């Protein structure tokens, strides 16, 4: 009967290995409960901050405040639910960290609304419309888009197929504010488009689309960018032909600087491209070339454009210009100094004295009220976000996913560096939004889409092998022979 035994035994063995596989899959924790607890924690911090505003001005919390907090909590839970269903193995920290930042932004905007209302009362002016509700509306839109990205985009590699389309759309979005009729200039920078009653900053979305484009492009071209080179002075230099894309990126960012007068965006794009080139090719020479081009561009811009020169002069010596051009930065520094180590306490400082306190200078406003202690915690949350993104980049296996996750994290990190560095006078001030914190719909939406993409990639990276869906031969491209 050996034959018979084998026939019975073999399926039995197969079944055993099958269960063994499944149980290993079950042992891989998804960490969704940790994520939920962290989310509730973040929400609690936000509620305490909101209550603190009321306590500081001696007003009891009204029903509206509880409803608003409830809405924010519900939005966070919706996002958690979507992640649980659609990206169960995704990183547990990304969502709570971004939520905490968004909530702190809402608290600060609410706090500035309160200050503006009190001031209007004192001067017998009509009450200004509060910003916090429109920010909350934008947050709702952001949550809807966040959910759509996670639900509709099942695999980030799909994006690779639209590399050039998305790149083109990104470029168009970038220059759209220059278009007549819909383009709008605010405070000297042409960054906005206005359609109907809505104004939008298309560069924020362009940031993500161009990161996808860079990732797709570099995956395709990195071999020639990394391998073919001539040695000059002990440094391997790429062929002139391969330098093309870098030069194009440089010219585009210079064009943004010249025509839109937007220093921050220009810096962000060029830095992002150079960093991604470096990651893709692992060649230090790109950093050297990129750095040289940046220095060249910076010097050029300094001598050619008055507004750039002014920024640098104000940066070097704000006190000379304390009442005019340097007013913003000086007020920001006063605010931070007033905050000191422990901060004035939420609701107890004067952050409304800083111009643009809810947008460009929200870090200064927060810094005044939570002090350097709170600000460092805040920057650590950003650092953790970036670190989680880079970790997803390391863990994911396809090179497009790696570059995309790394690029998105770098965008986030670079943006925080440029704006926080500007507000604290480490580098010349450039107008960029602080991700998640700043008042403004485009920025909030774009950054939540960014988080959705990072979650998608990290879900793919951390998913146990046995659960990876059926082999995706449908994605194999057929070699065409002519």
């Amino acid at each position, binding site marked *: 009967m050996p034959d018979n035994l084998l026939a019975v035994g073999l399926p039995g063995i197969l079944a055993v290995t099958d269960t063994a596989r499944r149980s290993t899959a079950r042992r891989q924790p998804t960490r969704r409960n940790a994520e939920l607890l962290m989310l509730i924690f973040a929400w609690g911090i936000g509620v305490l901050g909101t209550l603190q505003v009321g306590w500081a001005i001696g007003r009891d919390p009204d029903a509206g405040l509880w409803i608003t907090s409830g809405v924010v909590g519900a939005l966070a839970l919706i996002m958690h639910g979507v992640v649980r269903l659609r990206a169960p193995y995704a990183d547990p920290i990304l969502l709570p960290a971004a939520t905490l930042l968004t909530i702190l932004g809402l608290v600060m905007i609410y706090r500035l609304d309160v200050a503006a209302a009190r001031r209007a009362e004192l001067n017998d002016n009509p009450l200004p419309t509060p910003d916090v509700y429109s920010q909350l509306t934008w947050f709702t839109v952001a949550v809807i888009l966040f959910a759509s990205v996670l639900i509709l985009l099942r695999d980030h590699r799909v994006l690779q197929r639209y590399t050039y389309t998305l790149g083109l759309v990104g470029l168009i979005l970038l220059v759209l504010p220059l278009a007549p009729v819909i383009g709008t200039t605010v405070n000297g920078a042409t960054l906005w488009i206005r359609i109907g009653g809505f104004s939008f900053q298309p560069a924020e979305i362009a940031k993500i689309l161009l990161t996808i484009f860079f990732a797709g492009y570099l995956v395709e071209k990195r071999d020639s960018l990394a391998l073919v080179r001539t040695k000059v002075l002990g440094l391997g230099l790429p062929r002139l032909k391969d330098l093309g894309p870098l030069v194009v990126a440089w010219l585009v960012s210079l064009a943004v600087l010249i025509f839109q007068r937007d220093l921050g965006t220009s810096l962000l794009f060029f830095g992002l491209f150079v960093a991604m080139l470096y990651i893709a090719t692992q060649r230090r020479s790109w950093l050297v070339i990129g750095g040289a081009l940046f220095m060249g561009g910076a010097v050029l811009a300094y001598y050619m454009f008055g507004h750039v020169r002014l920024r640098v002069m104000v940066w070097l010596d704000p006190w000379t210009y304390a009442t005019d051009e340097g007013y913003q930065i000086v007020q920001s520094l006063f605010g931070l100094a007033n905050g000191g180590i422990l901060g004035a306490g939420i609701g107890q400082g004067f952050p409304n004295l800083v111009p643009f306190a809810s947008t460009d200078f929200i870090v200064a406003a927060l810094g005044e009220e939570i002090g350097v202690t709170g600000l460092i915690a*805040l920057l650590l949350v950003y650092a953790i976000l970036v670190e989680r993104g880079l970790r997803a980049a390391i863990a994911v296996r396809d090179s497009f996913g790696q570059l995309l996750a790394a690029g998105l994290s770098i965008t986030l990190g670079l943006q925080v560096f440029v704006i926080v560095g500007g507000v604290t006078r480490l580098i010349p001030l450039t107008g960029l939004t602080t991700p998640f914190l700043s008042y403004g719909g485009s920025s909030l939406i774009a950054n939540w889409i960014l988080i959705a993409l990072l979650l998608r990639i990290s879900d793919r990276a*951390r998913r146990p092998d046995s659960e990876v869906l059926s082999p995706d031969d449908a994605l194999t491209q057929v070699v065409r022979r002519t």
Partner: protein
Amino acid sequence: MSELALTLVRLGFLTLLWAFVLITVLVLRRDLKMPAEARPTGRQARQGRAPKPAKPPKATKQSKSKAKGTKLVVIEGPLTGTVIPLDDGQITIGRAPDSTLIIDDDYASSRHARVYPAEGSWIVEDLGSTNGTWIDRTRITTPTVLPLGAPLRVGRTTLQIQK
């Protein structure tokens, strides 16, 4: 609300903020071990990821024991430089995550080809891939002997058996 209470709330808020950061670090610390355990194959395949040209093969002392070659080396493509030691088991090549050599290439199939030992040499078999498995310039249709040093092409990747 009294001054004292406000100060306490203020400090409490900062404490909570820092607690959030510290708990995050705790969550992450528990998390650090997992990916390493979960995917040994991925690690192996990624070790040679740097798109640097393949280093000249080191003269190994044990190579004389087997005349048929001891390692499969990627000589072209994104994984250039990756070395897979050949022992007595079979090696699968493809995009599927359970392959021995995971190649991330749009032109490779999930289960593209396998290499296995038989009668003192290494045999390549195409596993019904979309774009075929090639030894030098010929597309293989049946299990074929892979001679030492012959270029084996899978998608955009070229492999070679070396001593």
